[in-house]
């Protein structure tokens, strides 16, 4: 006896100490938030981090009759979890609220969040027989007996005020009134937006017992992602028969716009004979009987794209409601160069898992590193709550007082069909100069500069209060055009080709044509002499005007003109001199002959006469 008391005291002490160290959290959840008058609600109160003599204070719940069914305590490695379970039977239809449940532990009082429940009136059918169906699969043998006594009636429609999913499920099930085992599937929204959550419910109905260990195969999905929301039991009267059902709920969301589908879910069961037989016989019967399969219907969905109009830049794909954002840093006072962990947390009703990672805005004065995200989902009161945590390391480069500005994040509300943007609150960070780096050069050393001046310290020069003078536009334009390097090179190349292909200059090349023209027109010896003189000037750069014949001949020889050509030139030149000073009668025919001889000489000089 004393040992037991000591153990209890020790446990109480240990859990109390743990509660002080780690804190206690209290939460309440229900298995469904939409029920009909025939259904029963399971409320679970979880006290994490506490054990011992705990008595929860339930609020007044006039809408329900409440029965406590169980309380359990679990202690692992000095971590205690206490659970209380209640069955709640609705008393009248309408919106009902389960108020905050108070738990007194230690010197503190903890409270749960209120839970809203929608209670709908049951469809107008024959009075459902209160059979063991309410116990679901726990005791399937009892249901068959009661179900067999049922009276067939016309199927009833679910009341219009029921939630869409409940109504669809009820009405779909009502069409199967002639079957003992069947399975149905339905979604509450057949055309959700991308990433918008829809609820998928799969129900297995039975009105007679079956052997336990009926394996369930979840449906496969196309263009959808799925999160489990939980399993619940219920019953429904169809055609006067009382059916029990087991319901699996999932939160599904579309991946890309377009068609999506949920394939058939399956359950394999072996119908029970219903006789009171031993466990051994039941096992044998399970082995010997052929299992039967119940399959749900295929559910087709159309996934809608979120509107692109007015889509904020900070939209990363989240669709849902009641999102909240917060930001925090692990340290608000650091040295320059030290890392700060920035954490941004998102919470809300919807699935944040498939959304893109938040992009951090540019933080002046900080080096920012890539954002790493973690996300998770959880079910709370029949809806999917999710969170996403973004972590980034930011490093201030220099000392000073900084403000991490508000960070925007947007989501699309499918109910209001509007984008909403939420913001974090700005965070102040104080950065002190680094003590790790060297202090640098000491500028404070004074120095005598002479003439009465003493330099005390050196500092950087003051700010510039205007922009720099822009570089001259022609420099910018010229520097931008690299092709401008090519024309002078091309020009030089052409000159070189010209020079090396034929060593004559342009003037030299022009010499022959000039001479030809002049000689053809020449009627006087003077004109022939002028033509020959011009030719020598252009071709050999020999200026004949002031030179005696001997020197002209020498110059020609220096230019590489062969001696025979030089002799011919001398002969013609002497004749020209003679004619120029001869009587007038000698001009005319004599001059033309000299012109012809000069032309022949020039032609020979062109081919064999060397060059200047």
């Amino acid at each position, binding site marked *: 006896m004393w040992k037991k008391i000591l153990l209890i005291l020790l446990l109480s002490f240990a859990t109390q100490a743990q509660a002080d160290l780690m804190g206690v959290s209290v939460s309440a959840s229900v298995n469904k938030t939409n029920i009909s008058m025939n259904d029963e609600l399971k409320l679970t109160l979880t006290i994490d981090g506490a054990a011992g003599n705990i008595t929860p204070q339930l609020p007044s719940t006039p809408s329900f009759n409440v029965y406590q069914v169980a309380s359990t305590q679990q202690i692992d490695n000095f971590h205690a979890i206490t659970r209380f379970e209640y069955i709640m039977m609705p008393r009248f239809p309408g919106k009902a609220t389960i108020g905050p449940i108070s738990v007194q532990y230690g010197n503190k009082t903890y409270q749960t969040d209120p839970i809203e429940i929608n209670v709908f009136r049951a469809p107008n059918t024959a009075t459902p027989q209160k059979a063991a169906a309410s116990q679901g699969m726990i005791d399937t043998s009892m249901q068959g007996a009661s179900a067999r006594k049922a009276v067939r009636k016309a199927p009833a429609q679910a009341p219009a005020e029921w939630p869409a999913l409940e109504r669809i499920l009820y009405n779909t099930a009502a069409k199967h009134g002639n079957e003992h085992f069947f399975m149905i599937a339905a979604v509450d929204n057949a055309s959700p937006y991308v990433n918008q959550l829809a609820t998928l419910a799969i129900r297995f109905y039975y009105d007679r017992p079956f052997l336990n260990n009926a394996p369930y195969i979840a449906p496969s999905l196309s263009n959808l992602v799925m999160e489990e929301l939980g399993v619940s039991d219920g019953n429904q009267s169809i055609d006067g028969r009382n059916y029990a059902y087991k319901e699996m709920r999932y939160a599904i969301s579309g991946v890309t716009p377009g068609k999506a589908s949920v394939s058939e879910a399956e359950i394999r069961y072996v119908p029970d004979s219903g006789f009171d037989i031993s466990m051994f016989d039941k096992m044998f019967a399970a082995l010997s009987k052929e299992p039967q399969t119940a399959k749900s219907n295929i559910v087709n969905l159309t996934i809608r794209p979120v509107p692109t109009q007015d889509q904020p830049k900070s939209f990363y794909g989240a669709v849902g409601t009641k999102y909240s954002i917060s930001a925090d840093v692990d340290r608000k006072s650091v040295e320059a160069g030290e890392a700060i962990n920035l954490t941004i947390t998102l919470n809300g009703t919807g699935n944040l898992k498939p959304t893109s990672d938040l992009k951090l805005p540019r933080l*002046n004065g900080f080096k920012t590193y890539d954002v790493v995200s973690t996300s998770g989902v959880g079910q709370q009161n029949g809806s999917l709550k999710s969170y996403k945590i973004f972590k980034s390391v930011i490093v201030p*480069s220099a*000392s000073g007082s900084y403000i991490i500005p508000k960070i925007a994040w947007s989501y699309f509300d499918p109910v209001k069909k509007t984008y909403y943007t939420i913001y974090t609150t700005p965070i102040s960070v104080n950065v002190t100069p*680094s003590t790790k780096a060297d202090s640098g050069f000491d500028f404070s050393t004074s120095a005598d500069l002479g003439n009465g001046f003493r330099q005390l310290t050196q500092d*950087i020069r003051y700010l510039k209060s205007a922009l720099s003078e822009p570089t001259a536009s022609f420099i910018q334009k*010229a*520097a931008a055009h690299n092709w401008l*390097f090519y024309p002078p090179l091309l020009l*030089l190349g052409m000159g070189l080709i010209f020079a090396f292909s034929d060593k004559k*200059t342009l003037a030299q090349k022009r010499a022959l044509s000039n001479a030809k023209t002049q000689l053809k027109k020449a009627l006087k010896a003077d004109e022939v002499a002028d033509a020959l003189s011009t030719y020598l000037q252009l071709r050999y750069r020999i200026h004949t005007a002031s030179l005696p014949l001997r020197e002209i001949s020498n110059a020609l020889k220096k230019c590489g003109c062969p001696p025979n050509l030089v002799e011919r030139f001398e002969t013609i030149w002497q004749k020209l001199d003679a004619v120029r000073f001869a009587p007038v009668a000698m001009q005319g025919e004599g001059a033309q002959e000299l012109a012809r001889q000069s032309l022949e000489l020039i032609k020979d000089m062109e081919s064999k006469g060397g060059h200047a």
Partner: protein
Amino acid sequence: MKKWILMLCLPVLLCLSGFAADMQQAEQLYREGKYAAVLGTYEDLLRAYPNDPFLYYNIGNCYFKMGSRGLATANYYRAWRANPRDKDITHNLSLALTASGEKFVPAGMPAALHQAFFGLTLQELKVAALAGLWFFGIMGTFWLFKRRFGALVIVSLLICIVTGGWYAWRSKIASQKLAVVAAPIAELRSGPGDNFPASANVAQGHLLLLQDSKDQWYEVIVKSQGLKGWIEADTIEKI
């Protein structure tokens, strides 16, 4: 007509008045010692007026006052590259480098020669080289055709060689991948990873020549020491 001109000029005037107000406000904050706040204003202005040397200079001043010599040096360097003849920029860059134990003018090089060599921006030098080439191209071609003004051809060739060589040398210097240690202290390791031993600690403000990169690591040579090693990308600022 006057109304139309006024309407056309209005956006420009508004932009200019906004700019002046921003600069004035930044200067006021700087005088009050709120350097971190000023920094944001100048960085925003830099996005509107990219590569303005005076904005780089002002950003460098903020970082210097905040004790980040590395980032100050990086910004002064950018300003100096764009405007090498501004004496304030040169002074502050020189001071920031001296503070980190680096030298603005390499040892053994006369300051005047350094100033002359870097006196023109790369853009200006390119245009000078271009002009030299055109001068020589025209004179050379003229000589090839006419065989005249031989002396001018030689002068133009010399100008072309000097400006072209100067531009080529400066281009080679500019093509060096330069960085500066931005973190208060950085570790130089023998390989690209934390698993390699650290061979030296390099304080902020030291100039680095980037050689190679692997993942988030750079192979660098510390300019003043000639040390070679690997340094984490996040601890440096590329210039």
